[in-house]
C-alpha cells in the first residue's frame, strides 16, 4: 500500500490544482495564528464579564466590615503600579512625602548602605509596576517579597526578628526588635518606609484620613482575584487644593479584607497608585515560609534597632520632624532646613543631589524668596532658598501660598 501511494501526490497534479493545494496548506499556519489571536482577545474579555451581584450594603456597614475583619492569615500575590510622572532618577527623593513618611532620598544618598537594606529596596516601588508576594500569619509573622526577574528581595518578620534577604546580591540584613514592643515595632518596620505594600495597608491609611473629610459611598461590585468584592468610593470633600480626585477600594464580600486600592489623581489618565491582589488565599501559610537562616557565605548587615532606625533617615538628611500645615486632604508637611540650601560643601551628599534636582524642578519665587518646585501627578514638593521643604498631595499654588504664609 505504502509503495503504491505516491510519495508526493502533488508532483503529478496539474499546475492549477497544485497551486490550490499550496494555498490550502499555507492556510494551516494562518489559521493557528488566527485562533491564537482570538484566544488572546476573547479569554480575558470573557473572564472579566459580569460584576457579581451581592446584597447591598451602606458605606458605613462596609467600613464596619473592614474594621471587624479578623482575617489574620493571608497568602497572595500583589501587583503595585505607580504612575506619578516622576523622572526615574528621582525615585527615592521627591515623592517620599506621599504618605507622610519622612524618607531620605534613598536613591541619591544611601549608596554606601547594604543592598539588602529595606530602605533602599522599597523606594523602587515608587516607579512602574512591581509584583509582590505577601504572606502573613498573625501579627508576629509576615513576609513581603519583591519579585524581580530571576531574583527576589524578601523582608521576613518572625517573632522578634526581622530579616531581609536580597538574592541578586546574596546579602542579608538583620535587625532585632525591642522585645517589649515587638508587634508595634514590627508593623512599622515591615511596612518599611510607610509605603503600603498591600491593599490592606493602603486602605487602613486612607480610611483614617478620610473619616469626616470625604464622601464615602459604596459604588457597585467587582471581581478581584476571583473574589466577589464591594467597591468603596472615596471622594475628598472640603478640600480645594488636593490633587486627589478619588480613591476606590475593593473589599472582599466574605472576609472584609481590602483586595484592591486605586488612587486617581485630578485630571485624566492612569491611576497614580494601583495596589491589588492578583491571587489571594486566606489560608494559613506554612510555617517554613517565615523561616530564614542566613546561608553560609552570605554577608549579613546588622541593622540598628527598630526605634533608632526610624529616626535615622531624618538625622542623615539634616531635617527634623516635619511640622504640619492644614488638615485632611490639604495637609502640607514642612521640613525645616538647618540653615541655607546645602552648598557644595558635601560633595557627594545633598549638595550634588540639590544640583541634580534643580535640573528637574521649576524655579518659583514669592515673598518667601525663591525656590524649586517639583511636580508629580500626585505630590508636589517645594524646596525653598532657606532649605525648607514643603510637600503634600496638593497643587502647586497651595505650596507657594503656604511658604508665603510662613515667611510673613
Amino acid at each position: 500500500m505504502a509503495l503504491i501511494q505516491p510519495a508526493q501526490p502533488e508532483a503529478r497534479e496539474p499546475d492549477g490544482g497544485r497551486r490550490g493545494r499550496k494555498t490550502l496548506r499555507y492556510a494551516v499556519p494562518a489559521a493557528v495564528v488566527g485562533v491564537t489571536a482570538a484566544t488572546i482577545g476573547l479569554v480575558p474579555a470573557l473572564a472579566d464579564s459580569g460584576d457579581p451581584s451581592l446584597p447591598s450594603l451602606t458605606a458605613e456597614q462596609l467600613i464596619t466590615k473592614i474594621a471587624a475583619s479578623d482575617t489574620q492569615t493571608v497568602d497572595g500575590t500583589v501587583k503595585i503600579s505607580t504612575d506619578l510622572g516622576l523622572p526615574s532618577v528621582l525615585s527615592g527623593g521627591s515623592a517620599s512625602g506621599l504618605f507622610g513618611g519622612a524618607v531620605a532620598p534613598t536613591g541619591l544618598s544611601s549608596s554606601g548602605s547594604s543592598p539588602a537594606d529595606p530602605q533602599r529596596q522599597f523606594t523602587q516601588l515608587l516607579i512602574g509596576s512591581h509584583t509582590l508576594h505577601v504572606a502573613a500569619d498573625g501579627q508576629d509573622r509576615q513576609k513581603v517579597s519583591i519579585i524581580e526577574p530571576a531574583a527576589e528581595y524578601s523582608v521576613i518578620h518572625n517573632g522578634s526578628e526581622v530579616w531581609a534577604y536580597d538574592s541578586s546580591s546574596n546579602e542579608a540584613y538583620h535587625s532585632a526588635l525591642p522585645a517589649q514592643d515587638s508587634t508595634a515595632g514590627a508593623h512599622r518596620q515591615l511596612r518599611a518606609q510607610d509605603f503600603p505594600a498591600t491593599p490592606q495597608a493602603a486602605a487602613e491609611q486612607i480610611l483614617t484620613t478620610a473619616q469626616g473629610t470625604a464622601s464615602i459611598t459604596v459604588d457597585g461590585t467587582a471581581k478581584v482575584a476571583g473574589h466577589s468584592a464591594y467597591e468603596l468610593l472615596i471622594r475628598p470633600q472640603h478640600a480645594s487644593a488636593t490633587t486627589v480626585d478619588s480613591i476606590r477600594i475593593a473589599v472582599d464580600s466574605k472576609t472584609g479584607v481590602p483586595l484592591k486600592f486605586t488612587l486617581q489623581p485630578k485630571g485624566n489618565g492612569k491611576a497614580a497608585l494601583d495596589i491589588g491582589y492578583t491571587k489571594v488565599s486566606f489560608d494559613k501559610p506554612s510555617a517554613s515560609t517565615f523561616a530564614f537562616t542566613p546561608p553560609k557565605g552570605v554577608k549579613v548587615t546588622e541593622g540598628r534597632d527598630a526605634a533608632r532606625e526610624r529616626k535615622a533617615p531624618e538625622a542623615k538628611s539634616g531635617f527634623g520632624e516635619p511640622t504640619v500645615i492644614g488638615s485632611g486632604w490639604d495637609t502640607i508637611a514642612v521640613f525645616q532646613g538647618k540653615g541655607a540650601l546645602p552648598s557644595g560643601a558635601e560633595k557627594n551628599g545633598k549638595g550634588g543631589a540639590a544640583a541634580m534636582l534643580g535640573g528637574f524642578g521649576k524655579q518659583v519665587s514669592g515673598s518667601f524668596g525663591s525656590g524649586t518646585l517639583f511636580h508629580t501627578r500626585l505630590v508636589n514638593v517645594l524646596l525653598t532658598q532657606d532649605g525648607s521643604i514643603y510637600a503634600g498631595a496638593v497643587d502647586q499654588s497651595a505650596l507657594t501660598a503656604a511658604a508665603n504664609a510662613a515667611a510673613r
Partner: protein
Amino acid sequence: MSRAETTAGPGLQDTGQEQRLALPASRRARAVWTLGLFGSELLIVFRRVRTLALLAVLAGVPVLVGIAVRIETHDGSSVGGSDGGGPAFLEQISNNGLFLAFASLAATLPFFLPMAIGVVAGDSVAGEASTGTLRYLLVAPAGRTRLLLAKYASVLTFCIAATLVVVLSAVVVGFSLFPVGDVTLLSGNTVPLSDGILRGLLIALLVASSLIGLGALGLFISTLTDSGIGAMAATVGLLITIQIVNNIPQLHALQPYLFPHYWLSFADVMRAPVIWDGIVKNLALQAVYAAVFGSAAWARFSTRDVTS
C-alpha cells in the same frame, strides 16, 4: 553529504521490503520506518564535527564561569560589585556549586544555546538541499511530512542534548570547585539538596522546551532556501534581532509576543512558592510558535520543487 546517503540508504531498503511483506501490519511497519528515519536523522546531526564543536563550546561555558567565580571569590569577597551585576544566580555559586548549573543556563540561554539550535535547525533541510542529498531522501517512500517530522524531532533532541550538556558540565565543575549543601531559594527559604536537584531537573526541562519555538522557526527558514549557510545565518540573525527588540523598552507592547520574552521564567522555579504564570506563558508561547512555524514549514516543504 555522502554520510547522509550511507545512513539513509540501507534503512530505506530494509523497511521497503518489510512493508511489501507485511501489508496488514503496514501501520507497524510505518512506525518502524519513522523510527528508522528519525534514527538516521539523529546520526546525521550528532556525527557532525560541527555539532560536536557546538556542544563543546556549550560545555565550556560553565567551566569558564566556574573558574572565574572561583578566582574572584578565593579571598572571600563577593562576585563583582555589591549590586549583583552579571547573570542571575551568579552570586550564589560560591556558596553552593549547584547554582553554577542555574547561572550557566541563565548565561547561555540568551544567545549560546539558541545559536546552537539555530545552526542545527537551519541546516536540517537546507543543508541537505545544498549538498544534494535531499532528493535521495525523498526517493524513499516515507513522504515529505514524515521526513519533516523526523527532522524536527532530531532538532528537539538536540535541544535537550544541548541543555543537558550545559547542566552536566556545570554540575561537574560546580561540585568539584565549590561546596555543596542545602539550597537557599531566591525567597530566602532553605530546602534540602535533593529538592534543589529536582528543581534543577525541572529547570533543565523548561530550558530545553524554551527552545522548541526557535527550532520550528529554524526548520521553516530551512525549507525556504537551498543554501544551508544562508538558512543558518538567517535563523541566528533573526534570533539576535528579536533578542535586541526584546530589550528595547519602547517596544514593550510587542515583547510579550516574541519567543524569547519569557525565557528567563525558569528562574521562578527557584522561588517559594513557585510562580507558575511566567512558566505557563513561556510554554504556551513556544507551543504557538512551534505550531505556526511547524505547519508553515510543512506547507512549504510538501509543495515545493526539490531540484537539488
